[in-house]
């Protein structure tokens, strides 16, 4: 093997790499390659926490706040997390309220996730769930702070302009103590505000569904018990679907993800082999 080959290994035309990557993504979409999935501890904790919340009879009149900060830009991960979450909430007959601070999230969440699932599980708007709607990002901190002591006064109206106090699901929901859990589905750093301003002594349970990119930076919060469970990106969504015994996008693309990771590992190895071999060859030529 000569140094020209090592150079070529490091300088493979990026268009070839992109083309191969696309093939590795597209082929599993056509050919279903079933792979075993093992839910991670964080996903299991996420599921178990909601199971505990559902089992606690004291939560019958409480709500789960589902905070969505995602938009179609990160739909590839967050939408499937949201779908699995809402499925779980509806399967366990938990009341919930959706809230968002992203301009596009409200429409996408309601039309693509909540409404189809509500039809499937017989959930009725106002009786079983409510949509608090969109608030501008500028009032994010003030809104979270306001929810601690006065939820009706902070939210006032739902997404359609109806006073939230007129809904049966909001009848007994006044302060933080009437919140059974908070689930944050987000591609941005919204957790700090919830943990800093809303949570007290890890109550109510705070569950986190970020994009995979953010997950490693939140392990300290998992370790300290501030976050009780985490769905790590699309893998977390797939784990959650497995635990719920449902099959959606998260489970579907597990094979495509695995193939792509294998390709990337191979490319990293090839690139590094080329790099170190080139360095060694240069040193040999110099001596």
């Amino acid at each position, binding site marked *: 093997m000569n140094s020209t080959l090592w150079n070529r290994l490091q300088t493979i035309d*990026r*268009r070839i790499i*992109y083309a191969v*990557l*696309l093939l590795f*993504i*597209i082929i599993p*979409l*056509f050919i279903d390659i079933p792979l075993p999935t093992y839910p991670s501890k964080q996903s299991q904790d996420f599921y178990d926490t909601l199971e505990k919340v559902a089992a606690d009879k004291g939560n019958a009149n409480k709500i789960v706040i589902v905070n969505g900060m995602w938009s179609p*830009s*990160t*739909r*590839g*991960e967050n939408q499937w997390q949201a779908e699995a979450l809402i499925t779980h909430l509806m399967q366990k007959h938990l009341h919930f309220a959706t809230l968002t601070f992203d*301009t*596009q999230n*409200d429409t996408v969440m309601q039309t693509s996730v909540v409404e189809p699932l509500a039809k499937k599980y017989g959930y009725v708007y106002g009786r079983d769930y409510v949509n608090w*709607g*969109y*608030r*501008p990002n500028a009032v994010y*901190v003030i809104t979270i*702070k306001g929810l601690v002591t006065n939820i009706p006064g902070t939210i006032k*109206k739902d*997404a359609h*302009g109806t006073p939230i106090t007129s809904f049966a699901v909001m009848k007994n929901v006044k302060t933080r103590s009437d919140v059974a859990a908070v689930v944050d589905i987000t591609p941005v750093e919204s957790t*700090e*505000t919830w*943990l*800093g*301003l809303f*949570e*007290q002594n890890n109550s109510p349970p705070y569950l986190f569904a970020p*994009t*995979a*990119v953010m*997950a*490693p*930076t939140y392990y*300290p*919060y998992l*370790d*300290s*018990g*501030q976050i009780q469970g985490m769905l*790590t*990106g*699309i*893998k977390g969504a797939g784990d959650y679907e497995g635990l719920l015994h449902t099959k959606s*996008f998260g489970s579907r*693309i597990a094979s*495509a*993800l695995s193939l*792509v*990771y294998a390709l*990337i590992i191979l490319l990293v190895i090839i690139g590094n082999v080329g790099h170190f071999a080139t360095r060694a060859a240069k040193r040999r030529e110099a001596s």
Partner: protein
Amino acid sequence: MTEYLKHLLDPVLLFGALGTIAILSLVFKENRFYRLFEHIFLGLALGYDLELTWTTVLKPQFWDAMVHDGQWAWIMAVPVGLMFYGVYTQRFAWMSRLVFGIFFGLAAGTAFQDFSARFMPQVTRSFAPNKSLIPPPPTPGDPHALLHQVSFVLNNFLFLGIVVCVLVYFLFAFEQKNRAVLRTAQLGRWVLMFSFGAIFGSTIMTRMALLIDRMYFIFHDWLRLVKG
């Protein structure tokens, strides 16, 4: 026109698919197709933001509250909002600083509570028994007792060592001339790089998931070549 063709030419799906292909075409070469959709994307995003700001914020919470609910005090938001624009003139810049100052003050005030509630639980986690450098007695009947003891000690020494190294790396008030300090800081930098590698790997998951979602949209939602 066949049903399939009608579906392919559905304006919403077609626009989404062409937009996806146009933006992705940048990875091969910058081209006019990309530029066209880039500008459409920018314009759409701006227009959508404006529309949403009016229909979901200004109209229901400001205009309707004033005109229909009689809450005329909301009109005071207008001069306060206009004060922001003072930043564009020398004469009225002081007005914008007043408003910025209020926002900064609000942020600073909540930062104290935020810091306590966010970071103090992590600091005091070091007082938990599972952070001890000496392992607790092994659980009777545990087949992997020795392994658990060793990993317990190793994990906690690593935890402590890494915290010290990384904090030393980020000390700026002291010149890092002393060899011990310098080596500790270098080790801290290496450890940071390990963690960045882990984050890089996680991020690849996100990027690939988003790309797979786009391909799914094209091949399943638009071309209907893939079964759901």
